[in-house]
């Protein structure tokens, strides 16, 4: 296997332009579990972990930018993220186990595009923007347009995921994250849900709900959002949110869970999260 370790983003983009079969990799946590045969077939990789442009967490005028090669351990330990985006901290704490968190990156979670990726509903609920770099320069894609189908992304051939930008949430925003896994750690999600919302004058004035493992991609729960925007918080509203969410998703039976259970757990978790909106 050949591994190229470029020193700059420009160099990485050039390598990828020269050799479209190069596989960009960072923490490799999703690759290593594909098994020895798959790894043997993957004979050329582009190591992104050392690129300075992909590292670090920094404040920008609109909010916070997180380098794509930032590990979940770094996210867990970031005071800036914990203060402004506690739902992301919570997701980082529940990805895999500590070893996975030490290697796995936020950008890798996005690019791997599993519908079960734990951080993805959080990025949807927090209205993230994804910054990509390619031969033609950089461009931005809204998070809700990034995952285009089952394990498909808006990344064009030759493009590299560089940073993720999270805008400042409105004052008083409540955030929530819940992972329903197969066990307490080292688990892949059966259902994963995130919420960001705020209440003004006794009404829900803003709400973004998102879920993973309930459709081919991580999804915004737009019908559930619409069903409660402007309503007064409380049990009736929460139950409406849960019911609507369960109706708008397309979960499947698979090795980890059942469609029935996923709808049930989604309904209950959404309901519980909306009950927390005050």
């Amino acid at each position, binding site marked *: 296997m050949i591994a190229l370790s470029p020193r700059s983003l420009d160099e990485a983009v050039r390598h990828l332009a020269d050799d479209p079969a190069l596989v960009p990799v960072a923490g490799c946590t999703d690759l290593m579990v594909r*098994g020895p045969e798959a790894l043997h077939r993957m004979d050329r990789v582009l190591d992104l972990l050392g690129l300075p442009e992909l590292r670090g967490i920094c404040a920008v005028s609109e909010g916070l930018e997180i380098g794509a090669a930032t590990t979940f351990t770094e996210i867990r330990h970031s005071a800036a993220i914990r203060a402004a985006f506690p739902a992301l901290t919570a997701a980082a704490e529940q990805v895999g186990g500590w070893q996975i968190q030490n290697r796995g990156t936020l950008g890798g979670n996005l690019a791997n595009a599993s519908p079960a990726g734990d951080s993805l509903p959080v990025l949807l609920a927090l209205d993230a923007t994804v910054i990509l770099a390619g031969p033609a320069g950089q461009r931005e894609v809204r998070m809700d347009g990034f995952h285009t189908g089952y394990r498909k992304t808006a990344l064009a051939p030759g493009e590299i995921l560089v940073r993720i930008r999270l805008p400042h949430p409105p004052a008083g925003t409540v955030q929530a994250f819940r992972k329903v896994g197969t066990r307490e750690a080292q688990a892949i999600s059966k259902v994963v849900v995130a919420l960001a919302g705020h209440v003004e004058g006794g009404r829900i004035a803003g709400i973004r709900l998102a879920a993973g493992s309930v459709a081919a991609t991580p999804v915004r729960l737009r019908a559930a959002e619409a069903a409660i925007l402007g309503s007064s918080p409380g049990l009736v509203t929460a139950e409406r949110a849960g019911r609507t969410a369960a109706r708008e998703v397309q979960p499947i039976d698979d090795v980890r869970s059942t469609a029935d259970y996923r709808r049930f757990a989604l309904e209950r978790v959404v309901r519980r999260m909306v009950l927390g909106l005050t």
Partner: protein
Amino acid sequence: MNGIGASPPRPDGFAKVSGAARYLDDLSLPGMWHGATLRSPHAHARIRSIAWDAALAPDGAVCVTVGDLPGPNGVQLIDDGWPILAGAFTHHVGEPVALVAAPTRLAAQQALQAFTVTYEPLDAVLSLEAAEALPPLYQLGMDSGDVDAALARADLVVEGEYRTGHQEHIYIECNGMIASYAEDGALTVLGSMQCPYYVQKALTHALGLADEQVRVRATTVGGGFGGKEDFPSAIALHAALLARACGRPVKLVYDRHEDIVCTSKRHPTLVRHRTGVTRDGRLAALDIEILMDGGAYTTLSSVVLSRALLHSFGPYRCADVRIRARALRTHTAPNSAFRGFGAPQVEFAIERQMDRIAHRLGLDPLEIRLRNAVAPGDRLPTGQILDAGTSALPCLEEVARRTRFRERRQELEAARARRAAEGDEDQNGAEPRRGIGLSLYFHGAGFTGNGERMMKSPVTARLLPDGRIEVLTAMTDMGQGCSAVFPQIAAAAGGLLPEDVTFAEPDTAEVPDSGPTVASRTTMIVGGLIARVTAALRDRVLEGLPGHTVRDGWIESPAGRVERFRDAARRLRAEHGPVELTLRHEPPAWQTFDETTYRGAAYPTYAWGADVVEVEVDPDTLAVRPLQVTAVCEVGRAIHPTLCAGQIEGGTLQALGWALLEEMKLEDGRYLNDRLATYVIPTILDSPRIDVHLLESHRDGGGPFGGPFGAKGVGELPMDGGAPAVAQAIENATGIGVPAIPATPERLLAWQRAGQTPGGVR
């Protein structure tokens, strides 16, 4: 000070935790090649043809197909019905069809592409229901008294059906072997195994070699749990066939995926109960039907079924009992030995049935067990009269006292009733629902029936030139700790210091066939022999010294210390040459068992246990988290209390994984959960606090059978108790009936919707 009851550091411990221990895959022989296995993708198919295109195989790879076998196509176990390689038909997904060897592991994998196999798929039998109408692999029955009359007389007849699923062992070290031939045709096999002599017998049988031409050596074993009882024989044969074909040593090691795909699992089981009870909750009749999924070949299913039958009535008194047990044939990989060997499945069922009966009668789970548990002098349904060490009631009473079971259960029941009365409980609380559950269990120690009598296991002890005693057994330390416990037993029995005794590595060229490392027999049966043979060899050294004894490594006369035992032993060895003794195990004369009627004493003694488990259930996800387990186990005597408690903690956690998390789904006979990403076992975060309390009946005179110093077998016992206790706790927390395991949230939801309650379907 005899060291029994002390907990010295285990001799293999530091090497294992520091990474210095060398497992099979760490070993390499000069010129060694690597093997790989071509497996059937079909559950049932006719094999029309197998073609090998040498031009497609890299690096001179060689192949072995069924036509290359030098002898019978069978892995010798109880019989040889399990093929080494599939013949004209394949009977399960993952069945070995052909083998290759190549210079590297990667080349061997790639060489599999050089095969072209033409299969003609056939209809497959893939479930217990489908198999029930077909001839079984094996069947057994037992009758005691008149069940039909007792059922007709009973105040109440309760029916129940209880299921358990596959369980994969997940030993840390996957299965693997290295085989090499010497120039004179002698074969040596190294590997990870529980039973070196099983492997040797399989090799001599299939390869047409004499015993002295086949040497089997167990390397450091990274866990077994029964998964290295029969399967190593097949892998050893594969490695040997490849070594024979390529003229070099061959290593054949499975990665985790392959290990899960093809090695044996715990038998999925369905137990049907029909129980007659009196109004005051006493068992009047037990009518039991056991169906086990044996998979495609019998392997060890006949003996697993036998142990299942003999534990299916639980630790309870009942005179009128009928049991029918069948191991059914399906087109899935053979299911075989797994810690507990059939008992955990049937004890889950009888415990669930006791809970259902208690629910119908308005008794609590403790009361129904107190009224029915066996006591010394009672008869089991087999007619066996139970010995003075029968400890079901002491375990039950102690666990209830320690956990305040009755009060705690009432508190939790009241909390559930209050939540229900207050209407929508969800408004107030995301807080989990708590529940408590209890189980009572027992495990027959040692081989079933006449197994030990037929084996007459030998253990040898000899004097080394330096005056130490070397003890030779075929037992392997797979993590259970016999390398710590055996020296304690030998030293205590001989009056010696631990450094006066050494143990030979399990190597068929050196050690006698003291039987397999299975059936909770290692400490109790082989340990007992070690005690006897060490004492006998000590007495040989003391010959001519009447009135002398050995204590703390010194020969003592009535006047005091005479000399170090080792000095006298060294002198004897120098003067007489080799001094060696072999003793064989002889079961107590009263332990007789009729293998046709299933009447008599099936086991020389039983170990006993009672568990209380407290769980919480998430009201939104129905996820069950076990919080606390209290296990009270009566083990006769704990030779090494730390290791003994460790066995109980580990077995309890393995039982909880089986009860809550571990699910093997199948599609067209293929396991879907065939990786550790999808076959989910407990992590440390899923593990409850486990408090173990050991009771030791040897203090009260033990029983008519004594293992060394009163010890009973303990390795499998804790596997029997966790699952039914956790099922009862879930019912207590949620009101949802739990007729099967694993009790995953998906199943709890389905049962809730289907109206399953603790009393049955509403």
